[in-house]
Structures are given as structure tokens and as C-alpha cells.
């Protein structure tokens, strides 16, 4: 999806706002968000934290994007560091030090601060598995009986998805991820071919050796990731 401000770059920051009781989704690229400045982000954060603000229930979702450039990784605004979960009393400091949530509400309070790190410790930043059949928190989406349909991928499907990801990573010059995908693809192909030798990964090969093939990247491939 293209950024709705510059209409040129891929949107990587999604903002969901409640406007006149309607859920409105905005998509921006990292550059435009930075242009709009941290000030705008702070306002959104403040609105989000302010439960009494009727139209201010704003959910900012930074999809692990602000650290595209790690030197520019945003620091949590000072005022956020004073936040305490209104339900269980967990403080920002406590949350960071123990890496531990105190209650369900903590996820709404501290979740936005954690966004950029989620992908570093998890396979993705969005739940794709089972849903409870009854009454779930902070959702207006009805639960599907039996949970979200999710089938295990065959190794071939997995290779295809990884190849798409690899192309995406190369396109944005994220060579660290590209190398990871390349190795996974090679590992899977070796497994497919029945090769179980330990020397899968000769040292010193560069990610540049992989074919680009940016074209034909399946949209929505990200949702199906490993």
C-alpha cells in the first residue's frame, strides 16, 4: 500500500483513528511520519492514553518500522516514561525492567511502546492463530468458531513465501533480513533434497548473490509468514 501523504513510498505506519464514531485507517511511509514529526506522534499517544477523550481513543500501530534506520529509532517521549497502568499499577520502568505485563490493560498502555521490538523477539507482530470462541477483550470483530483457519505450510509453499520476503528485503536494502531468508531458503531446499549434511552454510557468501525478482511479490504474503 502506498503512503497516502506522498503517494510514492510504501506505507509502513498504520494509524487507526476513531473519527465521528467511524474507524478510519491511515497509512503513511516512515519518511512522511518523520516529516510530520514526533510531535504528531506524541499527540496521538496522548490521545490514546486519555480514556476520557471520547474521540481520542486512537490506536497508533507502528508496524516495527521506525527502526528502519536504527540511529533514528524513536525514543519513548519523556512523558510516556511516567505512565502507570491504571488497572494494575505497573509502571513503565517496571514493565521495561521485568519485561512483564501486569494485566490485560497493560497491553494497551505499553503495547505501542513495544511495537518496534516485537518483531525482534517474535515471528511477526500480529496474532494469526486461534481465537477464543467466547467474549474477547477490546474487539468488535466476532470470533470465528474454531479459530482462524490456518494450515501448516508445505516446505514448497514456505520456500515460495520466503523467496517473496527475500525479494522484499532486498528491495528495501535490508540485507540482514535478506541473509536470514536466504539461509532459510537454502536450508529448506536442502531438506527437500534430503541433504542432511551439517555443512549447509559455507562461510563468506553474500546476500547479493540471491536473485532479486522483486516482481511478482504476492500481496499479503506477510500475513502468511512462518
Amino acid at each position, binding site marked *: 500500500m502506498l503512503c497516502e501523504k506522498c503517494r510514492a513510498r510504501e506505507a509502513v505506519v498504520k494509524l487507526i483513528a476513531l473519527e465521528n464514531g467511524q474507524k478510519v485507517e491511515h497509512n503513511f511511509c516512515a519518511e512522511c511520519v518523520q516529516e510530520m514529526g514526533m510531535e504528531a506522534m506524541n499527540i496521538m499517544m496522548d490521545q490514546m492514553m486519555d480514556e476520557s477523550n471520547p474521540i481520542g481513543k486512537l490506536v497508533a500501530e507502528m508496524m516495527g518500522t521506525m527502526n528502519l534506520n536504527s540511529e533514528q529509532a524513536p525514543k519513548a517521549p519523556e512523558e510516556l516514561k511516567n505512565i502507570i497502568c491504571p488497572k494494575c499499577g505497573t509502571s513503565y520502568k517496571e514493565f521495561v525492567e521485568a519485561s512483564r*505485563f501486569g494485566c490485560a490493560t497493560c497491553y494497551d498502555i505499553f*503495547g505501542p511502546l513495544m511495537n518496534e521490538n516485537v518483531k525482534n523477539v517474535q515471528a511477526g507482530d500480529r496474532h494469526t492463530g486461534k481465537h477464543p470462541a467466547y467474549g474477547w477483550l477490546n474487539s468488535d470483530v466476532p470470533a470465528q468458531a474454531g479459530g482462524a483457519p490456518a494450515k501448516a505450510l508445505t516446505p514448497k509453499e514456505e520456500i515460495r513465501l520466503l523467496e517473496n520476503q527475500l525479494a522484499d528485503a532486498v528491495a528495501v536494502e535490508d540485507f540482514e533480513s535478506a541473509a536470514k531468508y536466504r539461509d532459510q531458503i537454502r536450508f529448506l531446499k536442502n531438506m527437500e533434497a534430503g541433504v542432511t549434511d551439517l555443512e549447509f552454510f559455507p562461510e563468506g557468501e553474500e546476500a547479493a548473490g540471491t536473485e532479486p525478482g522483486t516482481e511478482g511479490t504476492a500481496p499479503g504474503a506477510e500475513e502468511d509468514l512462518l
Partner: protein
Amino acid sequence: MNWYEDPNVGNEIFVAARIRLTRNLRDYAFPNKLSNDDAEELIAKLRDKMDGWKTPTGETWSFLRLDRMSALQKNALREHRVINETLSQRVRPSGLYMSADEGVSVALMGDDHIRIQVLSPEVTLDRLWNICTKIDDAINEHFNYAFHDRYGYLTAFPTNMGTGLRVSVILHLPYLSASPQFHKLVNEVARFGVGVRNAFGEGEEKAGRLFEVYNQNTLGVSEEEIVALVYRLASHLAVNEKQAREQRYTPVMREDEAAKAYGRLKYARLLSVRDAMASLSSLRAGLGEELITLSGPLNVFGLMVNCCPAALALKTMNYNTDNLGADRAEFVRAMLPELL
């Protein structure tokens, strides 16, 4: 008889499987932030529904108050892998439903409100996942879970959020773990979000060379994908174990190792945890490959579990820990069939 003691289970590379699911209820703070009164209230509410239930496998289960059990009993349960470190040290209100063979359990008020776990010597992950998800659904019929559109099932630790699922396979890797490439292989497996660690921790028990292969990611992957991934990479390690032993040792060398281990176990008068685990590991390897034969069936993994300190004390009803080495030697000797 506990799940790990079934004598008719073989001694192959695949040892056992464990599936654990964490859940929290919507309207209460997580256990760490929960007052004792609220914890008591929550336990009472859960017990009101769950006390009469049977496990999806048709077994009855009993309820235990963990905070009223002795440290020895709790440590034994930890060694049996029924509860984790947090639960074994809980002195605040906490409870445990457990089937008679300890294979199916639901712990209350550990790190999270609910911890559903299934343990089995058969590595049939789909079946075990099915048992977990049925218990999960049954609880959800009566209680609202803390669930988030984006973060899935909400858990105390961010490392569990999403599915709340941890799938592990215990593998016996005596030859592979001694090979110089093991470290590298573990790193390669980690690229897939699958970790490998000592199944019994970093103490003397690790001489048993049992390794737990488990999923590190819980968010952004579905339950079915996790199950398939862990199984696939565990299988891959098992293949490498076979290669490692065949590449580096002749059958006679491996038979010799197993027979000597049998001798140590049969004639030792003092066995430390390390001695017992190392020798049992070698014995298991020889039995699994059928290089040596015993006069009767022997579940080596069960012996390993029962050789852990608290488990041994409970098993032998001998609580004088000064003599554990001698007790362990005697216990193992009594369990060993004859070498043919």
C-alpha cells in the same frame, strides 16, 4: 504409574513431547499483580466449574493446592516436568489439576492464571495439541479470556503472547551433542525460531544429554504452524544424531560404551546425578540401537527422571538426603533387568 514410566516405551532418539498453553482471564490482573484475596476468589471460581471435569482423554484429575505442599513435593513435580520453576516456588495461592499419570495438568496462578500442559512419551504432537485446545475451549465456555485483536492471547511475558503455545520435543542426542558441529546446527535451527536447550536444565542432570527442541515464537505464527515447525526441526536433529554416531563410531565402539555403562549402573554403590545420567544416557543409546539386549523392558527416561534428587527421595520414601548417592545406586540396580 506416571506417564514417563511406561516400560513398553522404546529408547529411541525421540524421548517425549510436551505442549503447554498459557491463558489469562480478562477481568483479573495477572498473578504477579493479583492480591491474595483476588487470587483465592479466582481459584474458587475456576474450581467451581472445573472440579468435576475429566480430561479429554477420559481420565479423572485431582486438585492440589501448590501453596500448601512441601518443598520436596513441589520440587519433585518440577523434576517430573509438571510444574515450572515459578510454580514450584509459589507460596501465594496457587493450584494444580493433575491426571493420575501426571500427563495432563492445568496449573492455576503461576506466571499466568492458567497453564494447560500435556506430556507424553509418544511424540504425536497433533494429538497432544488437540487435548490442550479442548481443555482451553472448555474453560473458555465459562470464562472470558484476555484476548487482543493484534496481540492474541495476552500473557504476563511478551515471549508467550499470541498463541500462548510452547511445543517441545525431548530428544536424546548423545553423539550429536558431542560432535563439534552441534553448536552450529543449534544456531541454524534457531534461525527458524526454534530453540534447543538442555531438557533438565544446566545442572548435573545435563549429563543425560537430553535436549528440548521448542518454538521460540508465539506471535505471528499459528498453532498448527508451530506444531509442524517444531516437529520438522526435531526430526532434522534426529537424522543428524544418527549420522553423527555412524560417522564417528563403529558399532562395536557403541556397543562397548553401552555395555560399560550397564556395568557401572549395575555395580556402582554410589551414584551421583551426573554419574547416573551419563551412564543411563549411554545405556539408552545402546538399547535404542538394539546393540545390547536386556532380559526385560526398561524405560531409561523414566529412570533418569526418578534419579533427580527430589523425585528419588519421594520414590524411595527416603528423605535422608545424606545418602542419596547410595539410594540412587540401589534404586537403579533394582530397576535394571539382566544384560543378555
